[in-house]
């Protein structure tokens, strides 16, 4: 009885809090971003593999997705396309990270419907600012 109530409350909190799914296979980058965003009040869920990322995101319905381009399993572009082809996820803010400064990547990402594009190495301020701006209308 008590247990069920606690779980229900946890679910409630989850729904209330700001939730970001971070798909990044570089553990140390993921750790730094997780720390930064946690401090900013985010609940950060990290995925290191692209293979099932779209599935997890579809189920989790986060407020924001941060997506690396080069991932094992599946590329960020493929995940992006999978997410955008679903109507209910059309508005989901997606921030994409790449370690190749190639304009080709940027164009491709924009064409595929990315919300914002950021090249590594980025500064922590840039990251936090981008996340705040991307979600300014949707989360408090």
């Amino acid at each position, binding site marked *: 009885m008590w247990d069920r109530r606690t779980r229900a409350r946890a679910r409630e909190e989850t729904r209330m809090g700001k939730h970001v799914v971070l798909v990044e296979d*570089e553990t*140390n*980058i993921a*750790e*730094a*971003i997780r*720390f*930064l965003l946690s401090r900013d009040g985010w609940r950060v869920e990290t995925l290191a593999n692209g293979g099932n990322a*779209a599935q997890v995101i579809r189920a989790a319905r986060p407020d924001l997705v941060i997506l690396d*381009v*080069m991932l094992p399993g599946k*590329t960020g*572009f*493929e*995940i*992006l*396309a*999978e997410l955008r*082809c679903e109507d209910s996820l059309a508005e989901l803010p997606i921030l994409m*990270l790449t*370690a*190749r*400064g190639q304009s*080709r990547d940027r164009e491709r990402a924009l064409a*595929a419907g990315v919300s914002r594009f950021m*090249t*590594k*190495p*980025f*500064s*922590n301020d840039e*990251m936090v600012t981008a996340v705040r701006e991307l979600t300014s209308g949707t989360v408090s």
Partner: protein
Amino acid sequence: MPHDTVTGSRIRERRVMQGIKQADLARKIGISASYLNLIEHNRRRIGGKLLLDIAATLEVEPQALTEGAEAALLAVLDEAAQAANLSADDTDQAEAFAGRFPGWAQALVASQRRAAALERTVEKLSDRMAHDPHLADAMHELLTTAAAVRSTAEILADDATLEREWQDRFHANLDVDSHRLAQSAQSLVGYLEQMKGAPGGVKSPQHEVEQYLAQHDFHFPRLEASGGAAEVDAVLTQDAAALSEAARFILRAVLMQVSEDARALGLPRLEESVAAIGVDPVALAARLHVPVAIVLRRLAALRDVGAGLVVCDRSGTVIFRKSIDGFSVPQFDSCCPLWPLFGALAAAGTVLHERVGQLGRGQVQFDAYATTELGQAPGYNTPALARGMMLLVPAPPGDVSRAVAAVGATCRICPQTHCPARREPSILKS
């Protein structure tokens, strides 16, 4: 005739080299000095006994004065003239030049040969730069590690109140990443060092043609409308005059094909059918009553399909390419034999359809359609020309309905570890 213009110069050259005066030579062979002067300045034709006498007096083979020895030299001078875009008038003076200034001609020939060899090396290297997955990976590694270092260091620097365990954690991460950064920077530098001195910007005729076609979006309304050899030649002279002669030769064949294809299958007709049944080459060919090979080429010309095309001859040499991002067709190395293009050559008449992706990070997938086109039989008991053709249509993003065959670009830069078709070891360290 050209030989006559140079023999005199050679006689003069030989005479001067041996320090014999014009008048002395003239006297020995029994002609006037002024006549010899005319001969030496290529104003009089010379042959027969007089030539033999002069050769004997100068102690050279008569042929050395008239022909042969410099045929190869003249061929290279011709190349040099073409490379420098000399006018036809200037080009025609190659013989006179070689006759009058043999030393300089030799020097020019030597540097022309060297330039040709260097050009090839440079082309190979810039090809490698552009399509080198190792370089791309090394850059990726470097930037990724730099990103981790930067974020971690900023957290440590900015937050004085950071709890002890987080501090320790991030310090440890920083330590690992900085080692990794140093290593990847070193390996990148080592790699770049190997390819030092490789400037870009050199083009092969094939490359020139592809660039020209890309500028025109692989689309020639003039040829679509009427076509024919006259129209093709008009395009070549009016529009492609800036290309090298070799490039124009290649381009002519391509444009002839375009105009032939346009007659067999107009683009609007194809567009209509694509709208009705999609990009399905075999179904389109059946519906439109044209060979599949033509459908493949025409689909490549449709902008909305956004497909790439690779054509090879029976030897497997790539003779046409419409490049597409994500599928590298090596310019100088031999291609990966696993491509459906070559499978189709080996199974003439069959149309292959395979989902392919080139190995490496950030793999892009394509639906490859390949077939072989047999040309007109040139006669009895003579094999017809055959061309392999492969259309590369970008696979729908996220589509996993077909298994993907992993192929490479060329062995030397292919990361595949166990490949039965490998011809040479990869230069990539795994």
